[in-house]
């Protein structure tokens, strides 16, 4: 099997030149960082990650894929109303999440279930959120996939695209003010780079040199809009130049490259060097959401090459090549993941809806008079 490493060894050192603004600013069309070859070829240079951890990384990717598959399934059966799948984006999620410390803050979009699970969002609670039931941390107030909790420093997502970007900047700013050595990371898509919120966030982060890392998952689509109609620049990472910020492109289906770049970016930011923009090149393999039919706008041929680049497949080949993964491991990993999910569904599906009273709670810290009245009215009328 052919091996290749595109990333220069020099580039893996904490404050290597690859994150120096000058390097990136002057080289808008620089190459994409890659460690795993396409289609399962091997990296010669081994990542600085223990064998057990590499196995765990893959295991996590399996869990995320299994969760995704199962939720789409539940939606088809009408057991949850909606779902936003992230199939194809497992490496982008687990690779970046791996690079975070517990004290770091995550500002997600709606396609980051894997990041949440990895950080310790309880599976039961996550499924409760999909069901919007009484045990959902969100109290059933939001559509599926709009979850979060301070327990794992994972903010509660909203739907408006891009709004979380300035929040993350504020999170990083807050950390600096509170002398906390944390980094804020924010996830968003290619589409989000067009929003005013993106522009605001990038501008503020750069001017203030805040410890924030922008993870842009360029999955090729904003619902039906392809990249070329979203942005005229060759690469989204080119945008970083205009903000005076380093911008990096990484193969988002290569979990080792993602982990390496993410770690470096995060530690760069943590060390006070300012923000970094990371473009993760990937592909949304499923529909935008369960309400979408991608066959109306995305030719199947377009997906074929991406199927070859499946992040699980590539990483598994690598692990197998190093003798770290076997067919038996594979069977066990999937069986365990499925079993865990099934058990969780079984546990939480009987949970009922949140109580009627909750409809007026949390608008303010205390329920004010007019909402008490409106609740009373509801009770009388209903």
């Amino acid at each position: 099997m052919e091996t290749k490493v595109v990333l220069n060894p020099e580039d893996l050192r904490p404050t290597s030149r690859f994150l120096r603004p000058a390097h990136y600013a002057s080289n808008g069309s620089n190459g994409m960082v890659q460690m795993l070859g396409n289609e399962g070829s091997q990296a010669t240079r081994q990542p600085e990650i223990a064998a057990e951890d590499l196995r765990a990384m893959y295991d996590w990717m399996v869990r995320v894929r299994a969760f995704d598959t199962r939720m789409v399934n539940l939606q088809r059966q009408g057991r949850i109303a909606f779902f936003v799948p992230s199939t194809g984006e497992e490496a982008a999620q687990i690779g970046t999440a791996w690079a975070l410390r517990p004290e770091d803050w995550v500002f997600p979009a709606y396609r980051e279930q894997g990041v949440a699970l990895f950080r310790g969002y309880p599976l039961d609670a996550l499924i409760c959120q999909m069901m919007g039931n009484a045990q959902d941390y969100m109290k059933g107030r939001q559509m599926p996939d709009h979850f979060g909790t301070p327990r794992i420093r994972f903010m509660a997502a909203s739907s408006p695209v891009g709004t979380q970007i300035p929040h993350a900047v504020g999170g990083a700013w807050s950390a600096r003010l509170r002398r906390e050595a944390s980094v804020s990371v924010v996830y968003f898509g290619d589409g989000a780079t067009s929003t005013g919120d993106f522009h605001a966030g990038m501008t503020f982060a750069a001017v203030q040199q805040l410890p924030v890392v922008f993870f842009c998952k360029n999955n090729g689509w904003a619902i039906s809009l392809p990249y070329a109609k979203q942005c005229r620049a060759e690469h989204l990472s080119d945008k970083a130049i205009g903000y005076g910020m380093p911008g990096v492109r990484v193969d988002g289906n290569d979990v080792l490259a993602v982990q390496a770049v993410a770690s470096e970016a995060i530690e760069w930011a943590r060390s006070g060097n300012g923000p970094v923009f990371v473009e993760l090149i990937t592909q949304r393999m499923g529909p935008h959401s369960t309400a979408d039919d991608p066959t109306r706008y995305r030719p199947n041929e377009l997906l074929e090459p991406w199927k070859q680049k499946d992040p699980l497949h590539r990483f598994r080949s690598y692990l197998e090549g190093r003798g770290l993964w076997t067919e038996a491991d594979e069977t066990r990993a999937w069986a365990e993941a499925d079993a865990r999910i099934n058990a969780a569904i079984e546990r939480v599906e009987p949970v009922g809806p949140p109580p009627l009273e909750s409809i007026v709670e949390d608008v303010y810290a205390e329920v004010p008079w007019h909402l008490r009245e409106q609740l009373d009215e509801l009770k009388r009328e209903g």
Partner: protein
Amino acid sequence: MPVLTFHQAINAALREEMRRDERIMVMGEDVGHVGGVFRVTEGLQQEFGEERVVDTPLNEIGIVGAAIGMAMTGIRPCIEIQFSDFIYPAFDQIVNELAKVRYRSGGQFSAPVVVRTPYGGGVRGGHYHSQSPEAYFVHTAGLTTVIPSNPADAKGLLKSAMRSEDPVIFMEPKRLYRSMREEVPEGEHLVPLGKARIAREGSDATLLCYGAMVPICLEAASRAAESGTELEVIDLRTLWPVDIESILASVRKTGRVVVVHEAPRACGYGAELVAQIAERVIEYLQAPVVRVTGLDTPFPYTLESHYVPDAQRVLTGVQRVLKY
């Protein structure tokens, strides 16, 4: 007459107007190639080409802002904001620019843009796919705010909006897109802006409503009729400038009024109706006007059915005005 769903009626209006007037163009997120996430603009790009039906980048400032620039220079953009919940990034362009271009230029420039946007609950959309922001627009001088309640009106009002010299916020009750079908007149069917419609005549009390609340109010009226109460249902159609005469005529007749909307109550559109009625015909009122509305909370997900008024809540409101 063909039988069309609500979304097909809007599509027909767009198609006919685009055929009639070359200056019209349509743009928004996902409106072109796939015909919109609700398929309202389906087939338009195929018929009118990529120049006149455009998929834009994900930025509402750009959609509204570019439309203003076009409208000031001779194009008639009919733009779509994918959900009215996502109209706020463009709020500055709408409030400070779209609504004020004519006034601030002393009438030298104008911006006849139609902003189409689906609004309201009923689709399990939670906070961000269910909002009813009409009051923000009614409070903004310079805008005309229109909300149709049925396919025929949707077609006729949208055609009028597209011929208006003023900017129109055209809000579409998304829960009716596919759930309501009826005969829709072909061709030159124009429903004038600023004119309400008596959706059902009655003399015991008046229900003032619009959009998705009209079928709810009609259902309530049918149920009330079973027990002998005759409710008049006024479908306002244009929220502002509102057809005050039709409202007053009905209030003078019934003396009892229930205002129904799904938007939050505080400073909602219902408040303006209450104030207008109180100012003009208080002497006819036999009971305080009752507001049956959404709650002053963000729009919930699981408890949505408690949030949006239904026929039962409307009837409870009716009882309150009748029993006063």
